[in-house]
């Protein structure tokens, strides 16, 4: 008999036995006392949306800080069906906890509940799934409906300060018009416009709602077309996506047109440049970095130390980046994470 092979077999058996014992120990221990390596998942609504980079960065920083494995997944293109499949896969893989940014607040409910029923804690960030069994929802800014309302309030403040009267036409654009967060922003904006129109010396009037596409080149092309169609009629473009905001700024710059206010979203580096140059009025933003750090800190403390997860909705207030606070926004971890 070969001594080397005996040694090898013995070592293999010992290793195998050790692994089995380790696994048994983990499965029988409570979450708070487990010493096994933890895997937490971040489920994005769009794997490559640049706006969500700070969220990923916040999660990655927490993974480095606490030493857990971070699994980042997301559908591309952004569909609820794909995201449901991803959740089912994570449930099969038995990750230790999941933070999700749902594509659709309603469609994801059964998949989230299934995961929770399987013993995997789930929390939502940026977009809520309020009817699910998720533990908490954290947003590093206002709720998405309030984001729309805040934008409308700011638009009215802007035009009132200019002494505007009569009708102010505007277009509304979205790169993902069927996603819940975008629909919330739209409904919040439109609801607040109705309220403000009742007492305002001028009336905001929507003359078009457009899908601009998430493909960067098509988004730019669509923005050019919308500008050609409506540019001469409007004084406001309410752009609900980061790429839309950026491309509206680019198109106005190319046409040397400062008669249209771009009221947009998200702190993409190029958008901040356009704010500095005066082509974009402002871009509302949340701290997605904080969403990553907060959510994963809570989830890690729960699965590693047994700390109770928060419940309900936890959020702050959105921030408008404009020419006045541009320098401070540029230095924020959110902008740095996005390459700014």
């Amino acid at each position, binding site marked *: 008999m070969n001594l080397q092979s005996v040694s090898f077999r013995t070592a293999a058996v010992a290793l195998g036995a050790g692994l089995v014992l380790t696994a048994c120990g983990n499965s029988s221990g409570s979450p708070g006392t487990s010493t096994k390596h933890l895997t937490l998942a971040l489920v994005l609504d769009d*794997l*490559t949306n640049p706006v969500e980079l700070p969220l990923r960065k916040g999660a990655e920083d927490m993974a480095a800080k606490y030493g857990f494995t971070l699994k980042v997944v997301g559908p591309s293109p952004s569909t609820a069906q794909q995201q449901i499949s991803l959740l089912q896969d994570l449930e099969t893989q038995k990750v230790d906890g999941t933070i999700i940014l749902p594509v659709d607040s309603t469609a994801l409910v059964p998949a989230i509940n299934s995961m929770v029923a399987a013993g995997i804690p789930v929390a939502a960030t940026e977009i809520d799934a309020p009817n699910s069994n998720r533990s908490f929802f954290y947003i590093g800014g206002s709720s998405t409906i309030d984001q729309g309302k805040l934008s409308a309030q700011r638009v009215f403040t802007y035009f009132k300060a200019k002494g505007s009267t009569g009708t102010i036409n505007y277009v509304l654009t979205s790169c993902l018009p069927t996603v819940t967060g975008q629909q919330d922003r739209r409904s919040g904006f439109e609801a607040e416009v109705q309220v403000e129109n009742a007492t305002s010396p001028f009336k905001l009037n929507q003359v078009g709602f457009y*899908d601009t596409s998430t493909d*960067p*080149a098509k988004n730019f092309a669509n923005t050019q077309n919308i500008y*050609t169609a409506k540019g001469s009629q409007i004084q406001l473009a309410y752009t609900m996506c980061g790429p839309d905001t950026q491309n509206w700024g680019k198109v106005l710059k190319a046409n040397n047109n400062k008669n249209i206010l771009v009221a947009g979203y998200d702190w993409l580096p*190029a958008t901040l440049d356009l704010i500095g140059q005066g082509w974009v009025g402002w871009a509302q933003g949340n701290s997605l970095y904080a969403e990553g750090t907060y959510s994963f800190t809570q989830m890690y403390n729960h699965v590693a130390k047994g700390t109770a997860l928060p419940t309900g909705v936890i959020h702050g207030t959105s921030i408008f980046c404009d020419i006045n606070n541009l320098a401070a926004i540029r230095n924020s971890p959110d902008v740095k994470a996005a390459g700014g």
Partner: protein
Amino acid sequence: MNSAVDPDQARTNPAAASTTVAPPSRSRGRAVLDRLQQFREGGILLAVLVTGAVFTAIDPRFIAIGNLGNIASQISFEGVLAVSMTFVLISGEIDLSIGSMVGVTGVVFGLLMTQGANPWVAVVLSLLAGCSMGALNGVLSVALRVPTIIITLGMLNAYRGFAYLISNGYPVENYPKTSAFFSIGQDRLFGVVPYTAIILLVFALIGAVVLRQTVIGHRIYAMGSNPRAAQLSGIRTSRIRIGVLIFNGFAAAIAGLMAVSQTATADPNIGIGYELDVIAAVIIGGAKLTGGSGTVLASLLGMLLLGLIRNGLVLVGVSIYLLIVVSGLIVILAVAIDRFVTRRRQGGGGVQAA
């Protein structure tokens, strides 16, 4: 053996067209239509003209120079792809991975730029990357004896995943954007003609000459018309298959670079869904999925038609969801007009050679 030539094929296959006899003269009232019929791409040209006339009648801004420049710029990326896809479809093959190759080449360029590469060196390396992906498609198809539709269906995901992998899913944009390279996508000659449209025209002209005037072009038609006969006549069909797919990868790289030049961002999402737009444009232009038929000009007109529809529907204010419905229906209408003109030619005296 039936020596009659399929009139639809004769319309777009120069070898076949040479065997048709000219139709007899028509009444004066039909002069314009007759002229269009005699023109090989007459059907699709008529569809383009009708579409343009309708949109102009509804909104005269449609025909404004600035808007036409926008349309030219907007179709230039996919137009380059339509040129190369014409070669692929004529040869009887198909490439579903073209949009993903656009994404990879854009990201490759961006990553090279972040490493401090000279922009023009990065352009050359990105073009090589495109050719390499096309070559891989071709070699896999030939070596594994698997149809290109299957290979490129797999590669559609593999290349897109590779784009995400090497970019870590992030748009690559942290590089200097002062090079003249970025002016190509963002500036216009005399402030009117987009440079990307000029690139498209030059590329299409070269493509058309190769396809119609060279032995290689005639072999591509022959292979698509009857692969077995082409093989028996000594044409190395495997080489042609690999060659057209390399050309497609090359075109994907050009489109990817044009997109990065315009947006100044190497986004791994660039190109998603382009394959369907491009194949639709080539089919609208009269090419057949079964091969042996099609011209570069017709494919460009097909892409122009799609561009006109996208632009025009926004201008006339069609709602975003109805726009998707209408754009699909207009494509069918355009193909119907094209086929109507073709049938008129056929019925109006397109006597076939015996």
